[in-house]
């Protein structure tokens, strides 16, 4: 049998296997949505170990999203059979999915899946996936994405990746993992700090700040080749890279002319242009998804607040007014809301502002939140926080209801960045 040992070891339960594999992120659900859609994911037909592993990935994804409640499906749903709608209705399922995994002639697997609306007794889709054993988890994520999109109308983000930095004794690693924390790989390891990873819009590159040269320098790292180049290494500090929506430019913070100020460079490091001027600090630039505005943090008004300028320059417009410390602006993918970190009575908390109404909601009850990052469908916000003196990642839905904690044993995790949708 060509199937990797990894999957064999996972029969006891994916979560257990994940913890044993190595120091990877484990996800703990700490809060769920109020109205979870009841879904039944039937066991898949086929080679038992493979089929079970696949169904567990799909179930774990849907469960973790906080938007679904898993309902017992009661056995396999054969490829040609009509689902037992009456039975499923009794169990309370609104949708049912099932399918099969078969070995194809070239040794790969063919996975078929069918999704049905139970009350309407209607088919919602029947995708087929051709994949290797190593792509089993990825196939599970794609199936979960299909179900998520059909049932919620929004794209699923189970196939996306996240980047984060793990600090263990004297060692910093920039890691890439699947959105569920599995398959983590180090893109870079260093004895010096690494901060501010930012995904290129196509998901192929990461820009980040590394201190390996005894000062902050901005690099662009190609993930497929492992090659990287310096994007900004001017006299002074170079930091806070943010990609333009077309992926051609980076907004960066440089101190070559004195204090921390905003500049734009081409992604290859050429053509530096200053885009804003203040006598104090301007930092943490972020392009709005439509490319019109650049949001940033500035102390030009006496305390750190969020401002925006049009990307062609012009006058800065203040965005946050409440409180004396509002930093780290991050636009939602639809450009309609702004996540940021607000200080409230000494606690640093994740806040979300509706840009049209300026209404702001605090989404967390923790005290050391940092570095928010939207899922590419805008549903969840991943951020760094501290629990028991240790850095962990947490995620919260933009309505504040769904909550997850992602942690690595015996290490600090920080600086999360959620990658773009992969198509």
């Amino acid at each position, binding site marked *: 049998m060509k199937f990797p040992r990894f999957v064999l070891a996972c029969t006891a339960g994916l979560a257990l296997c994940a913890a044993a594999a190595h120091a990877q992120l484990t996800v703990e659900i700490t809060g769920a949505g109020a109205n979870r859609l009841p879904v039944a994911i039937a066991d898949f037909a086929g080679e038992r170990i493979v089929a079970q592993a696949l169904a567990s990935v799909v179930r774990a994804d849907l469960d973790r999203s906080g938007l679904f409640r898993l309902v017992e499906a009661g056995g396999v749903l054969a490829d040609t059979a009509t689902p037992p709608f009456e039975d499923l209705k009794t169990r309370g399922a609104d949708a049912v999915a099932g399918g099969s995994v078969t070995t194809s002639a070239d040794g790969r697997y063919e996975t078929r899946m069918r999704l049905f609306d139970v009350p309407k007794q209607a088919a919602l889709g029947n995708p087929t996936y051709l994949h290797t054993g190593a792509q089993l988890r990825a196939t599970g994520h794609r199936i979960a994405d299909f179900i998520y999109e059909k049932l919620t109308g929004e794209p699923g983000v189970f196939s996306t990746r996240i980047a984060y930095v793990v600090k263990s004794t004297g060692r910093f*690693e920039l890691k890439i993992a699947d959105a569920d924390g599995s398959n983590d790989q180090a893109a870079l390891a260093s004895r010096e700090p690494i901060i501010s990873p930012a995904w290129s819009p196509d998901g192929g590159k990461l820009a980040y700040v590394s201190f390996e040269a005894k000062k902050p320098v901005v690099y662009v790292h190609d993930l497929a080749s492992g090659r990287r180049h310096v994007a900004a290494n001017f006299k002074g500090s170079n930091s806070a890279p943010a990609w333009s929506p077309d992926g051609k430019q980076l907004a960066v913070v440089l101190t070559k002319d004195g204090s921390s100020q905003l500049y734009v460079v081409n992604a290859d490091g050429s053509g530096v242009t200053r885009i804003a001027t203040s006598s104090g600090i301007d930092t943490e630039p972020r392009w709005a998804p439509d490319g019109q505005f650049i949001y940033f943090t500035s102390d030009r008004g006496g305390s*750190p607040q969020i401002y925006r300028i049009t990307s062609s320059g012009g006058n800065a417009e203040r965005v946050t007014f409440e409180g004396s410390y509002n930093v780290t602006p991050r636009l939602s993918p639809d450009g309609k809301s702004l996540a940021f970190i607000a200080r409230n009575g000494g606690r640093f908390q994740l806040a979300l502002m509706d840009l049209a109404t300026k209404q702001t909601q605090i989404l967390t009850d923790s005290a050391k939140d940092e570095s928010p990052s939207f899922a590419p469908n805008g549903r969840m916000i991943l951020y760094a926080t501290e629990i028991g003196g240790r850095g962990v990642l947490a995620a919260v839905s933009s309505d504040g209801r769904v909550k997850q904690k992602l942690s690595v044993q015996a290490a600090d995790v920080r600086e999360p960045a959620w990658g773009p949708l992969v198509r």
Partner: protein
Amino acid sequence: MRAHLISLSALTLLLAACGSQPPAPEQNPAGVESRTPGPVRVATPPVVTKVQPADKFDPGSIAALKDPRSPLSKRSIHFDYDSYVVKDEFQALLTAHGKFLAANPKMKMLIQGNADERGSREYNLALGQKRANAVKKALALLGAKEEQVEAVSLGEEKPACTEPTEECWAKNRRGDMLYSGEF
């Protein structure tokens, strides 16, 4: 791809290892070394006044940079909370370094500004830069040339002290001066 990632990681580690030898005075990895020498150095100006009259070393020599009797061996300037003003107690120290740089135009200095851990990493990087810039400006007034001195920030990334206490945060709000060969 995996092979690429691993070899690059190994290379980076190797580079990092080479780059950090010999260890510069203020470059100890966070949380490894107890930082008791820090406050002691700052709190003992009498040593400076006592030693100088003896004058058994050339205060302008490069050897003086590492001689514990020389003010030049002291490299840290501490700042108050939310402040970027060099306090009077550090003026004598900065004067010694400014004169040394003016007398040794080939010597280069890297000033690393630092901030305490509260709040955003990137904003703290900018605060550390303000401290490094303040030190650089003071040295320039004393005769150090623009091309001799580079002011950079390590933000909250290289704390001298890792306890969440005011005493500890105070140790992290500092500017460190490193000379050629130390960075």
